[in-house]
């Protein structure tokens, strides 16, 4: 189990054991549903906390069925931070919403398995999911401008989930919310507890969002582009805040982003997503320094570097992401790939181990060889 180092978090656990009835009941329910008994501490690293297997999420639209997530498999181990990167519309957010089982109405998970702590989330009832959301898995959304309720004081938005999940009284939950507000860096929390979201700046709103996400000490954090909508100066602060809080609590996190800088600075491993599937997975060092997939290379090539000469053009990936309603056969990236040949157009490559990381590319073999040769 996680060791908890936040001072207020310890206090919270103390509170929890006092409010025994409710919490005890909840724990029992959780134990009943877990198919695998809790692993001993030493084995924690062996078993992934989150294990997505062949996930397929589809949307029904007027244009046809959109395969937003198409056979995605990904594992997150206890305590690690994984970055999920890719262009807009490649299915990153839908992957996170699939995990939360909060897809929009026209969306549906049609196949696959999402194992969380040994339990397949796709087989949980709505009520069981309610107990997992916020309590075990929390999500930070991209748009702090619209993601918080405009007609409820921000303090209540933080404390209400603790009342539900931790069985805290309204007063205790309020005290906890005040501590959380102070902890996420909101000055004079007492005075701001009753304020509404329109009285906050974007960065402050995202801090409130973070306080909500961390309030019930979830085991898994899904952060969906938490800094995209913010000013550049605020982005770094918010990122550091999430990183530090997650580290303090030993939390497992999935960072969804299209910013390679965030991946480099915050993640242990990175998964690159293209057209609803993963094309490359590996440790941050491996993937950023020795990208195997041409798409990853393209993404990295489009990041400006300190060594660029003035006037030098950034390289970009030609073409557009494929239409998710009518995916081409073979490798989904071939129309934009400089290395594509006949085989790429016919057969779809699967994720395979090349050196330290995995890639789904027929040409990866050749590239990993050339990289090791060049060493």
């Amino acid at each position, binding site marked *: 189990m996680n060791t908890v180092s936040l001072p207020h978090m310890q206090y919270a656990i103390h509170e929890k054991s006092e409010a025994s009835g409710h919490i005890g009941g909840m724990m029992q329910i959780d134990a009943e549903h877990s198919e695998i008994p809790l692993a001993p501490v030493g084995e924690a690293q062996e078993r992934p906390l989150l294990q997505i297997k062949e996930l397929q999420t589809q949307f029904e639209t007027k244009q046809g069925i959109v395969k937003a997530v198409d056979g995605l498999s990904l594992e997150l181990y206890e305590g690690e931070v994984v970055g999920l990167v890719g262009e807009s519309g490649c299915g990153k957010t839908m992957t996170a919403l699939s995990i939360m089982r909060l897809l929009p109405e026209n969306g549906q998970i049609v196949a696959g398995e999402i194992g969380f702590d040994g339990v397949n989330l796709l087989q949980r009832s709505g009520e069981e999911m309610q107990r997992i*959301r916020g309590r075990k898995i929390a999500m930070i959304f991209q748009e702090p401008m619209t993601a*918080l*309720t405009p*007609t409820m004081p921000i303090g209540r938005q933080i404390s209400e989930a603790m009342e*539900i999940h931790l069985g805290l009284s309204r007063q205790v939950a309020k005290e906890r919310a005040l501590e959380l507000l102070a902890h996420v860096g909101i000055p004079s929390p007492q005075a701001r507890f009753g304020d509404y979201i329109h009285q906050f700046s974007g960065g402050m709103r995202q801090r409130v969002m973070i306080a909500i996400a961390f309030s*019930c000490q979830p085991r898994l954090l899904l952060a969906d582009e938490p800094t995209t909508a913010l000013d550049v100066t605020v982005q770094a602060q918010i990122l550091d805040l999430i990183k530090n809080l997650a580290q303090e609590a030993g939390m497992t996190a999935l960072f969804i982003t299209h910013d390679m800088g965030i991946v480099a600075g915050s993640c242990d491993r990175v998964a690159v997503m293209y057209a609803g599937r993963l094309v490359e997975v590996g440790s941050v060092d491996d993937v950023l320094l020795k990208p195997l997939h041409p798409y990853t290379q393209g993404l990295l090539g489009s990041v400006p570097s300190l060594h660029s000469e003035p006037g030098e053009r950034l390289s970009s990936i030609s073409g557009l992401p494929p239409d998710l309603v009518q995916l081409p056969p073979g490798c989904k990236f071939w129309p934009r790939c400089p290395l594509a040949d006949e085989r790429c157009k016919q057969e779809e490559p699967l994720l395979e181990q090349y050196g330290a990381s995995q890639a789904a590319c027929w040409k990866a073999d050749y590239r990993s060889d050339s990289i090791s040769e060049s060493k």
Partner: protein
Amino acid sequence: MLLYTLRRIAALAPIVIVVVFITFILGYFGPIDPVRAILGEEWEDEQRYAETQRALGLDRPFMIQFLDYVGSLFGGNWGQSLSAYAGVASDRAANQGRVGGAFFGTSTGVRQMIFSRLAISAQLGLWALLFLVIFGILLGVLAAVKQNTIIDYIIVTGSIIASSIPAYVIGPILLIVFVLKVPVFKSVGGWDGMFSRQAILPALILGSGPLLVVVRQTRAGIVEVLGKDFVRTARAKGMPERLVIARHMLRTAMIPVLTSLGLITSGLLLGSLFVEQIFNIPGIGKLAIQSLMSGDHPVIMGVVLLQALLIITVNLLTDLLYGALDPRVTYD
């Protein structure tokens, strides 16, 4: 907010004066001759006519009459019903038993008459409003949550039916059913106080008229916020759906409903011509009919003035309630 309220009340005065002026003009040039109304068949006697006209002050120039009326209004005197004078038509109506006896009142002061009638209409209106708010919003939310299912269709169709059958059709039908066939209610009408059984049927009928508006607007309001990001956040926190609706959706969804409720409320409090007539309830609606039939011009003026005042007051209250619903609204 206090300052805002005071400013709004101050702005009331010119509106009221304009309303009074227009009503007064209509009365002055309109077809109703108070002298004829009082004298009945005797009006052809020129001497009697002139005497009565002088007694009522109607021989004075228009502006003098108007200023006199406005002046006494500010003094709290809304004038005297013509029934204060002998042989008045509305007294005849009372004698013919067309009026709910006790409530017709002994007072002939227009203000006293109107406010005693308003008390009855408002009590009835309050029940109707309560019914409307509770059922309208409940059904609207249910229809929105069960959007495009059979439950949604039943609720919407049901409220269309409830709202489109006129009171003068459903009223007698309900009376036949619940008084004659299944005698749940012993007497046919009249008014026996707010908490008597007699109040139930008229309140239901009065409230079901605007039901459709409230149901539809609540439904539309909830449907609009259903897909909002903040609703998803509330769900992502693991809030039970019931609390997501009650705490996160309802307040935002209620803003357009409040607009309609404001307009509906002044109508409900002022009573209904049909419902009060059918159930023989001596409220404002019935008073309006009586005074129009008997040409009791001071009472008509009073009813119109009261309507204007009520509409303005309810409007002000609605504007203040926006602030309670939506924290972004400020009153500066």
